[in-house]
């Protein structure tokens, strides 16, 4: 199946090999059409209007919320629209930190994206709580056994990614959540890299909070979801205050709306929510069975070819994952990525917002190739061809011996 035809960006960039979907996926026409539909046919505000363009747009927004609820197996009022995964993760930390006391423990990992880790680092500093890191295995993985080593009666929060954005490993979150709940701890899962690639079932995971961004899953930028368990959301204070999130406001008092609206202050990104509905439809049509199969085939093929190049070092060659973390030995990733870019291969270089992990790996920066279902075998072959060409080039200019 050639999925590239659904992505307008390729019309003007036929030869582009896009291997940076972990940073942001490409967007299909269906999604940009849905966004412009809002501007062309509705264009009014939602929730507050009493005329057609407003109540019709409100109905569509609520329909999208239902779609997302179904997509992750939540109920509708548990789906909060946010500015993105970063916003979702910050909201959880900012609201829950008020319950933290001196000496409480927060468990996280060195694999985390900065947006999963930093809100808790700040909260811990403010409240005198202690951050504990799950020791990673030699391969850089999180295991249930190592989680048990840091879990204690003092654990109040576990902030953990479902899939690492550098290594691509799948965290055993279901087991970790079950163990955390025995201790009464709350688990906030960063699903930014998981939601685009696999069926998420928040009930099955029993996650307390689950966050993700639409721009990594064929959807619009500037929109994310915070899933939270009803009873938790009901007991929490909102972080942002403003219009449309309150019930009654007097000069000295305010009561809030019910969830999810309590957490949605101000005018929402309505056009993006329209786009998100189209993205969910699109992913459902493609199907996670197909997505997982292609993730494995493409990254497996690329890894096999990379392994045969002696100048290449792969950092996560222990498990199937749509992400390959690697370097050309002796070449700084930023030098390498310019060569790829000049040859129309889009990779990511640097720290990928995961500096603690690079310290753990004891490297200053890495290259990352990430695959999605619209990539194909010819992308892999061009990537390998350019890799070999890069090595030859850097030898020729005297960079590599």
């Amino acid at each position, binding site marked *: 199946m050639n999925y590239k035809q659904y992505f307008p960006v390729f019309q003007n960039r036929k030869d582009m090999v896009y291997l940076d979907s972990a940073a942001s996926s490409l967007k299909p026409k269906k999604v940009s059409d849905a966004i412009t539909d809002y501007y062309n046919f509705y264009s009014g505000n939602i929730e507050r209007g009493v005329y057609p363009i407003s109540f019709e747009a409100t109905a569509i927004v609520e329909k999208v919320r239902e779609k997302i609820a179904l997509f992750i197996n939540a109920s509708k009022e548990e789906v909060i629209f946010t500015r993105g995964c970063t916003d979702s993760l910050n909201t959880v930390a900012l609201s829950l930190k008020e319950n933290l006391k001196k000496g409480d423990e927060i468990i996280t990992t060195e694999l985390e994206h900065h947006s999963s880790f930093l809100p808790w680092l700040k909260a811990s500093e403010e409240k005198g709580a202690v951050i504990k890191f799950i020791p990673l295995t030699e391969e850089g993985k999180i295991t249930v056994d190592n989680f048990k080593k840091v879990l204690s009666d003092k654990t109040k929060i576990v902030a953990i990614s479902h899939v690492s954005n550098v290594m691509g490993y799948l965290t055993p979150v279901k087991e970790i959540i079950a163990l955390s709940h025995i201790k009464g701890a709350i688990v906030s899962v960063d699903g930014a890299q998981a939601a685009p690639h696999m069926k998420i079932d928040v009930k099955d995971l029993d996650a307390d909070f689950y966050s993700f961004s639409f721009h990594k899953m064929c959807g619009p930028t500037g929109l994310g979801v915070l899933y939270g368990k009803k009873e938790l959301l009901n007991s929490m204070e909102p972080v942002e205050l403003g219009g449309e999130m309150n019930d009654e406001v007097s000069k000295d008092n305010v009561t809030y709306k019910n969830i999810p609206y309590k957490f949605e202050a101000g005018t929402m990104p309505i056009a993006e929510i329209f786009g998100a509905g189209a993205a969910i439809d699109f992913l459902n049509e493609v199907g996670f069975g197909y997505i997982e199969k292609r993730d494995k085939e493409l990254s497996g093929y690329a890894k096999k070819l990379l392994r045969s190049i002696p100048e290449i070092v792969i950092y996560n060659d222990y498990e199937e994952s749509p992400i390959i973390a690697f370097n050309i030995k002796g070449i700084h*990733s*930023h030098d390498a*990525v*310019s060569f790829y870019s000049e040859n129309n291969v889009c990779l990511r270089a640097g720290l990928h917002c995961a*500096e603690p992990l690079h310290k753990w790996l004891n490297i*200053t*920066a890495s290259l990352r190739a990430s695959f999605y279902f619209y990539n194909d075998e010819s992308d892999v072959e061009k990537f390998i061809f350019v890799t070999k060409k890069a090595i030859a*080039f850097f030898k020729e200019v*005297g*960079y590599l011996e």
Partner: protein
Amino acid sequence: MSDMNSIYRQVIMDHYKNPRNKGLKEEEGYVLCHLKNPSCGDMINVESKIQNGLVSDIRQDGQGCSICCASASIISETLKGKSVKDALNIIDNYLKMVSNEEYDKSIDLDELAVFEGIKDFPARVRCASIAAQALRKTLEKEEKNA
């Protein structure tokens, strides 16, 4: 691949492989600036010493890509011995050159001219600029103190 050749020139490779003025003095009279590019992990330290209005010494240290490290080395060599005023002027024009902005072509940038090709690589402007920015900070700091 003429474009890539325009930035990976022999001079740049030579400075990357054999950096000049490498290692910090951390002595009295030296002013230090530490700059970092948080997205790619480049990290540069530049130290300078001013005597009688002249930049009498520049030391540099850090880690990063070849462009970042070579620019630190070339800057340290090119600007050593210049007056503070001339050094600041060269830095200013060098930064404009790599950012593809108008700059005063009558000023002799010496070996720093090898970075002209960077203007065609927007993603690398920061790599070529970070050491110059650090040195500018140390010189400005010293000027203020003087």
